[in-house]
């Protein structure tokens, strides 16, 4: 399992692995926002938590395409399916690798982009915490979407169509927590619900992902 994790991270970091693409996309989306809605700092600071969450979510979505497709094309998934490692575990590890190479950098970059969006001072802690709790769920749910569409040529658009509705509860609680935090209100309830979603999806989604991947491999 450790070998798979290290391999996936190594592949992401090496040339052509796409590491940093999500981060760059996140930056660009946030930079575009003031051009679209106007540079009024009051307005920006009001919408900052929500926009940052949407940006992170889309950046996460963007990288799902590569999560399993490359391993499917070169036969790695076939070989992993015959390996002693259960597919559920392999997919959990791949989701973890995806989170480390995509989700975690987004969490770390979010405060910097928060400055661009005039995020209120008290909002930073809650923004980072909510992303830290929420992005793992995005990775695991995304792995399910990737496993579902892995056999489909040019399935990227379909993948977005399938995954985005599944992202809704995470987005609602995550953005709500960040929003309340930024407004100086008590954010503990949405935070707990967000943690609940993350815990439940991490525990259960790999089984669904492995089930659909097995169907796609046969």
């Amino acid at each position: 399992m450790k070998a798979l994790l290290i391999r996936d991270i190594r592949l992401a970091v090496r040339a052509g692995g796409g590491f940093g693409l999500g981060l760059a996309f996140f930056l660009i989306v946030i930079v575009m926002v003031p051009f679209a809605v106007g540079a009024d700092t009051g307005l920006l600071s009001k919408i900052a938590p929500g926009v940052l969450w949407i940006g992170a979510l889309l950046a996460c979505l963007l990288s799902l395409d590569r999560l399993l497709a490359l391993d499917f094309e070169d036969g790695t998934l076939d070989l992993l399916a015959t390996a002693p490692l259960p597919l559920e575990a392999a997919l959990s590890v791949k989701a973890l690798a995806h989170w480390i190479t995509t989700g975690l950098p987004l969490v770390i970059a979010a405060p910097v982009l928060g400055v661009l969006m005039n995020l209120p001072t008290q909002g930073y802690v809650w923004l980072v915490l909510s992303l830290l709790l929420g992005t793992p769920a995005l990775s695991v749910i995304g792995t399910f979407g990737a496993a579902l569409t892995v056999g489909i040529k040019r399935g990227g658009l379909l993948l977005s169509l399938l995954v985005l509705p599944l992202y809704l509860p995470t987005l609602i609680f995550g953005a709500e927590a960040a929003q309340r935090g930024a407004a100086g209100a008590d954010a503990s309830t949405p935070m707990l619900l967000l943690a609940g979603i993350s815990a439940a999806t991490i525990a259960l989604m790999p089984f669904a992902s492995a089930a659909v991947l097995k169907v796609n491999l046969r």
Partner: protein
Amino acid sequence: MSLWEYANPVKFLRLSERVLPMLWVLAISSTVVGLLWGFFFTPDDIRQGSTVKIIYIHVPAALMAINAWFMMLVASLIWLIRRHHVSALAAKAAAPVGVVMTLIALITGAIWGQPMWGTWWVWDPRLTSFLILFLFYLGYIALWEAIEDSDTAADLTAVLCMVGSVFAVLSRYAVNFWNQGLHQGTSIPVATGERSVADVFFVPLLISMVGLGLLFFALTLYRTGTEIRMRRTKALLAREGRN
């Protein structure tokens, strides 16, 4: 003689051919009676005026939008557990009907909302939940269309339906949490047995509910028959190809 006998596509086709004519008559007549009664022969509401009459299409459509998804969930489970092809095809056939019901509920809701709330659309939890349900339907249908092998498509969409159901319920609660909303409470709470609608409105409403329910049933049965015939054509061609 068990119910599962009709899981055989050919037997199912024969049965549905016998049932369908009667079902069409019942479905269309009760829908027409319910809607006409509701539109023309009920008094206006004191506060809402004649706009309330849209309820006779809005509520049954919304009801069937949810029931259609629920039926797809049950059919998907039957497919995953018992591998009856008819079940998977019935789920596939129900989805477009369900999506139309969802659209009707959304559009009539918007039309009703305009005079009542002064706007076509509010991000009210109920409306929002239906919009989300609409997205789930779209994803489900798109996945069926994207996969060539029919058994693979049936398996994948069945799992998507199960996972989607969980997330749809989760979204419903998340949306409730996010915005408390303007939408009136349910008119006919099943659990308590009380209702906030007077009998004059209730009877035609009930008839339209039964009507749209039967209409959904007839359309789904008809579409399932079409799906079975398509698969049968493929199967016959495959047999031809071998000889």
